[in-house]
């Protein structure tokens, strides 16, 4: 609803108000995350303030944070897409003794109570290993890079490039800048296919934006063939949305790294509550299949598992993409 009483609790829970800022409203992954937030807040009986949305704009995030603080938030969950520019805000919040949990991204500077994140370098790594293995160490791979100004895009790109260079030097990688835009990816792939008709692998750093354009293009070029066909192009995606699972079931793509939208929401709220309650965490294994690491002084990071989904485990009920309707 658009008119929830501001500052009030939309979940009706008790305790200190906890604020959540959503990073954007135009991506499937984050919209799923947004849906999980109130759901888990209810489960944990939290006093959740109406979430704000910073629309992928750091200036809006800062403004939202200030507004939420004025409205009495005792802990803030955010997902700064620009990891550099949030530093000052974090300092301010620290001075005001308001703990921050960041989701998906780790600030370059400044202290936070906990970073809830999957290891984005691992995404790139997993994709590289899967492709390298399927291609037998040689071939040509197109990589749709995310925006260079986002840490996730950079981590995935760097890890993918390093791994390819070290482990599979026989594979040529074409890294296409896309700014997370499907149309740019489609145009680049089309051009690249004309230049190198023998391309046999694709790594997409975000299934939400690249999946449909890629499939549509390959379909129109009759390149969407089963893995048994020699013309098959191996595709690894990233995100774990239901559409990707469908495509895996149909054999149109081969794998995706499931970025746990549900766990992000669940543990972001979990740590926010823990912070308000004054709990402390130490590096090491957790009770939910993950590891807390200390990335630097003042910053702990809970690295949630991000499973590689292939035809073998695509129907696993535990995957968040199988839990929501499309």
């Amino acid at each position, binding site marked *: 609803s658009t008119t929830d009483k501001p500052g009030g609790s939309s979940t009706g829970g008790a305790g200190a108000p906890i604020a959540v800022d959503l990073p954007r409203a135009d991506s499937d992954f984050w919209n799923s995350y947004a849906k999980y937030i109130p759901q888990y807040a209810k489960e944990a009986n939290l006093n959740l303030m109406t979430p704000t949305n910073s629309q992928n704009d750091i200036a809006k995030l800062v403004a939202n944070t200030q507004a939420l603080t004025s409205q009495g938030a005792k802990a803030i969950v955010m997902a700064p897409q620009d990891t550099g520019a949030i530093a000052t805000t974090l300092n301010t919040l620290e001075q005001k003794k308001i703990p921050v949990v960041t989701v998906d991204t780790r600030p370059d500077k400044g202290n936070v109570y906990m970073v809830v994140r999957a290891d984005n370098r691992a995404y790139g790594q997993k994709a590289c290993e899967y492709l390298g293995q399927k291609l037998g160490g040689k071939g040509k791979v197109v990589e749709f890079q995310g925006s260079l100004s986002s840490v996730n895009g950079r981590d995935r790109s760097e890890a993918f490039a390093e791994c390819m260079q070290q482990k599979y030097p026989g594979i040529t990688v074409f890294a296409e800048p896309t700014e997370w835009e499907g149309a740019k990816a489609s*145009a680049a792939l089309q051009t690249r296919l004309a*230049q190198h008709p023998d391309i046999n692998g694709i790594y997409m750093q975000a299934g939400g934006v690249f999946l449909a354009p890629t499939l549509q293009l390959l379909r129109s070029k009759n390149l969407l063939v089963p893995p048994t066909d020699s013309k098959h192009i191996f595709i690894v995606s990233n995100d774990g949305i239901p*559409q990707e699972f469908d495509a895996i079931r149909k054999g149109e793509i081969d794998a995706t790294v499931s970025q746990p939208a549900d766990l992000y929401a669940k543990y972001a709220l979990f740590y926010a509550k823990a912070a308000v309650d004054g709990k402390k965490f130490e590096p090491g294994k957790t009770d939910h299949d993950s590891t807390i690491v200390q990335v630097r002084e003042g910053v702990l990071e809970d690295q949630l598992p991000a499973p590689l989904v292939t035809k073998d485990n695509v129907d696993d009920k535990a995957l968040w993409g199988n839990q929501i309707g499309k």
Partner: protein
Amino acid sequence: MTTTVTAPAPARRAVPLARLRDLALVPAIVALLVVGALIDPVFLSRANLVNVLQQQTELSLLVLGETLILIGGRFDLSLESTVGLAPALGVALVIPAASHGIGTEWATALAVPICLLVGILIGALNGVLILRFGLSAFIVTLGMLITLRGVQIGITGGQSLFDLPPSVTYLGNTIWLGVPLSVWLCVVVFAAGIAALGWFRQGRAVYAIGGNADAARAAGIRTDRVMYVVFMIAGLLAALAGLLMAGRLGSIASNQGSQMIFQVFAAAVIGGVSMNGGKGTLFGALCGVLVLGLVSNILTLAGVSAQWIQAVYGLVILVALVLARLTTGKSQDS
């Protein structure tokens, strides 16, 4: 009084500058073709050139609409949001709620007509605000740009629409005689546009309105009515571009078309269309579209690093401009 009438000043045949300006980009296009061929022989392959054309179809339709409006002396920024909203609405009204539809589940055959109708309505709404209420075109369409995109996000909840009915994907996804249907479509639409602007009264009226609206009114042109039609045509073309894009990409992202408006203006203005109205041709604008398409294709083929690609792209555009200036020798307007 008797006078031998002095011979009228020698009517030196003026160089048809408008004509020249139109062709100003042809050398640039040739140069780009040569550069492309040198960088990679694949560039000149039929497949690659067809790709370039197909990738530019949506942009070219938007540019056509925008050029009409610019020639008429107005302005429309909201086209890029129409590219997203029109097909999104058309699709959301027909697909089931499970696929992020609105839940109305109208007959799928209605998707395309709804989409086009939405485009026309948006154009009409712009027209009402600008022509009837006398609001500034820039700020109205900027407001519409934001609002329409917001409505799309609101309706779809920010999700991409994946389950497109075949009628929607048909246009952007069909090949006729080895060339995408969308390319044929553009050829037809541009031919019609060039004919209308060059040889028909209603088309010439747009030039007159952009050149001097008062004079056009004095000459009996129904300036408002003509501009309403122009805004609606532009909306329709934007909706059509949205359909093509949806078909080509197989889905409608909630940011479909976003950021295109800068490219639209770049293409039109590089192609010699004046921001002050009354000047420019569709042929020139089309050349502008091709230049942009060729430049990005070549940069992709050349494998310019992600780090520097944007700087190179911008620089190439600036150089193209300076060259166009030197070839025509005509100062451009602000």
